[in-house]
């Protein structure tokens, strides 16, 4: 339970870091589209990667979130 709580907190912090990063010039630089990867412009491939990371964190979060339905035992 304690470990899950910590893991949930880590997930939340990582998500918050990604959210902040997502709106900085690091991810959406004004008018810049290079370097491209597989021909995909910079802001697009970085934001696709970060979106995938968010979904992975959601998956991990779904495993470690400590909330339970009434009457449900912790796994």
């Amino acid at each position, binding site marked *: 339970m304690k470990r899950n709580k910590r893991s949930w907190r880590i*997930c*939340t912090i990582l*998500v918050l870091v990604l*959210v902040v990063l*997502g*709106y900085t010039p690091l*991810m*959406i*630089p*004004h*008018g*810049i*589209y290079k370097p*491209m990867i*597989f*021909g*995909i*412009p*910079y*802001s*697009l491939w970085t*934001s*696709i990667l*970060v*979106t*995938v*990371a*968010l*979904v992975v*964190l*959601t*998956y991990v*979060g*779904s495993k470690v*979130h400590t*909330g*339970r*339905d*009434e009457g*449900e035992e912790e796994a």
Partner: protein
Amino acid sequence: MKVWIYIFFGIFFALLAFASWKSYRRNRSAEEFMLAGKSIGPILGFLTFSAALFSAFTFMGMPDFFRNHGIGAWTFLAFSDGIMVFFILWFGYLLRKKAKEHNFQGVAGLMVSSYGTRWAGVAMFASAFIFLIPYVAIQIRGISIFLEAAFPGLLPSWTWALIMVVMMLVYAEIGGLKAIVYSDAIQGLILLLVIWLIGSTCISAFGNVPDLFRAVEEVNAELLSTPGPNGLFSWQFLLGSMVAVVMIPVTQPQLTTRLVVVKDLASMRKMAYAVGIFAILVITPTIFIGMYGAAKYPGVPTSEFLSQALLFDQAAPVAALAIVGLFAACLSTTNAQIFALGNELRSLLTGDEKKAMRITRFSLFFFAAVVMVFSTLMSDELALLARVSFTGTAMMAPIVLMAVISGRKPAKEIILISSLALIIYLLSLAGVVPDHVGKLKLDLSLYLFLIVSVAAVTFIKKKIEKLPRLES
């Protein structure tokens, strides 16, 4: 192509008929009809949530958004959806807990019992009505554009809209929410299949992905970075959109209800990350369709681009499937939203259940009629209209969030504060209030105002409650 259209429509209608037959029960209770007995499993749960979220707006609005404003459209929707699905883990858990305590019948009803005043429910219902009606009308508008292009001159657009609305009402009347959930699942799968088929055709028209982007670079390199050629995707626009999108499960009742009707918490969690995966899968091909349009159809009107890219440039079976897919998307999203409005109204009604259900059923007809009228007045800027709808309802998020988070009764002033923000936003849409406060966009300013004032009101209420009571 017509033969393919008949074949795919035949299959689609057969699936719908099967879904209605499976969902229909004589003498079902209001909860079975309106909330599917709160027993939806994780697979149906994620498909119905995704289908309610990704609709004609994704299918048509997003490619057009990529075409006109460039790759920032990914951050606008997909990145925001990634944040939203994580938020669902936290919010969905608290919401389900609250819903159990208050015997959830609808978001408006939940707010009435949480705040202890009808005004909380009325405010939620009013905002849902004001912003969902245009949002639903977008869907109808989307399919009308498409059907007119597929069958030029056959029927006027309002007749297509009427056919859709009548079908939707009959279907909802027979099967209730359960049937809508099944149709959502069918629609979600068709949408995913057809959007990838079209996306792949768009890539192969240029050879491969790098060549597609190279072609766009030659036409308009500004599309490959933010803020895009028209400067739309500024960080302020994207951040404001993110808040609005993340708040969708909080303030759009058709989605809030879906978090509650999933049978258990484990299913809801699976649903959250599955929606995230679905979001990436469904938005990715819209990049290719949009970039294809940017290189091949720059500057043409939306309807022309969509009918070319989604219909006439596709092989006959794919084009036919696109028509059926869009029709299905439109039908299920419209159904989900009209039904949600009906459910919200029902959760506000007290007294005899049969009478409440009669009023609710009548209200579905009324909402559908209003939507039909609106759909004839809509513009073609589907994605921007959707954003307005999301932002408008997001102004009411503090009401729901505070009700769900607080262990005790939240301050009633929150209703007033949220309603004030909503009115200011509406006035800005009407051009009465400027859309910026200094350099900050109005939606971001209103979010700041909401955060600060709701925190202040909650703090003051806590302090007052701690004061020793005067003995009389």
